[in-house]
């Protein structure tokens, strides 16, 4: 072999072959299901939207991203005011039903829920607003001189935060629950739905009535399950948020004031 050729090309050839080899390495026969992990899409939001849990009385309202910021602010403010009133004190009545139909590999599910504000309306003060993607976010507090909001942007990591897998336990005063939702094209629908799901879960944690019927033979199984509750809660707020390309997640907390499972 020519010495000059080998000095110049042998290291390059070796590296190229090694890289080619690594690209050929197949993953071991992996699990059918893969751990939840966001693809390369990275999402950025204002810090007060993601980590607003530390700000007392903070409520976020949603609006479509209108071309005129004042219009979006005004719609978002009305939404925030309604949410603040609901969060302050509410009655939540939930009923969910599940049925596994015999002889079919099919589940039938339905739910009925109603959230009623129990507090009187109170004024809220606009602290910040921002347009992110297709939605407009409005931050309000019940006090014009209230605490300052966390500043800056937060870029969400690709690994889910710990509270999704290990929801915090209640400390007696505060109850916690995780809410999830599909990330809809209109993004605020996804966050709104995740918050609603979180409040439902929180209510069912406090008190849940279970009624179920299970019939099983050698050939088939039939199962009907109903879970319902009626709970009064107060100071309900979003502590933290995370999302990936497909779903939105929120950690909500609140005080349980009365439990009356139906």
């Amino acid at each position, binding site marked *: *072999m020519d010495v000059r050729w080998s000095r110049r090309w*042998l290291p390059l*050839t*070796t590296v190229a*072959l*090694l890289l*080619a*080899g690594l690209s*050929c*390495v*197949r*993953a*071991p*026969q*992996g*699990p*059918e*299901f*893969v*751990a*939840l992990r966001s693809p390369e899409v990275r999402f950025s939001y204002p810090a007060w939207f993601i980590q607003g849990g530390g700000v007392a009385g903070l409520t976020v309202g949603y609006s479509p991203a209108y071309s005129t910021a004042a219009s979006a602010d005004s719609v978002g403010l009305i939404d925030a005011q309604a949410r603040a009133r609901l969060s302050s004190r509410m009655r939540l009545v939930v009923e969910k039903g*599940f049925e596994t139909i015999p002889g079919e590999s099919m*589940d039938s599910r339905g739910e009925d829920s109603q959230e009623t504000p129990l507090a*009187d309306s109170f004024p809220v003060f606009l602290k910040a607003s921002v347009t992110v993607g297709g939605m407009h976010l409005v931050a309000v507090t019940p006090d014009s001189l209230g605490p300052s909001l966390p500043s800056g942007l937060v870029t969400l990591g690709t690994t889910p935060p710990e509270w*999704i*897998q*290990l*929801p915090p*336990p*209640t400390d*007696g*005063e505060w109850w916690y*629950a*995780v809410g*999830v*939702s*599909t990330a809809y094209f209109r993004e605020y629908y996804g966050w709104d739905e995740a918050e609603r799901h979180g409040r439902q*879960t929180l209510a*069912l*944690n*406090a*008190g*849940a*009535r*279970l*009624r*179920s*019927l*299970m*019939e099983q*033979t*050698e050939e088939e199984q039939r199962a009907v*399950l109903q*879970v319902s509750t009626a709970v009064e809660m*107060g100071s309900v707020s979003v502590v933290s948020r995370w999302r990936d390309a497909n*779903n939105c997640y929120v950690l909500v907390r609140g*005080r349980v*004031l*009365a439990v009356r*499972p139906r």
Partner: protein
Amino acid sequence: MKRAVLAASLVLVTAACGGGGASPGPNPNPDIPTWYTSIPTDPNMLYQAATSESRDLQLAVNKATADGRNGIAQQMETRFQGLSERFQEETGLGAESELLDQFRTAYRGVVNQTLNGSRVSRQEIKQNGVTYRAFVLVEMPIGAANQALMQRIRSNQAMYTRFRAAQAFEDLDRQVKAYEESQRAGNP
């Protein structure tokens, strides 16, 4: 020496491309969280693991959680009935007869229970193409722990009742009503 490096690289490439990854991992069931099969024990808690799959993540979590709560309720009180049906039919005569004997067993379980303080203490979500599988571990405090929790709820309720009865709230009520009256007077 250089030829040896080149040869070794070729061997590595061949081995890497040909290897199928049959080497077993440390966890024999990586699909399933370890806590799902090794459920914790605690004299003050009831635990129930459950799983469900759906194209919608919220539905998968809801069903798994409801199943988990139902499992807890079953641990507390379940009315199980063993049912059996037997159907016999004989056709033909004597040694030529055929006996058709169908024996059917069934189990029926009914649950009607209220749970206070049950919650998902662990959950793991796995994705398979367009579907999600949610694994949850539902726990519920029992005995003294549950009594303490319920006492806390009752005291929260009592505290709010006292707040409603307080002078400040009455003042607020009066002021709001006065404001509403003035609004009505100004805008009939």
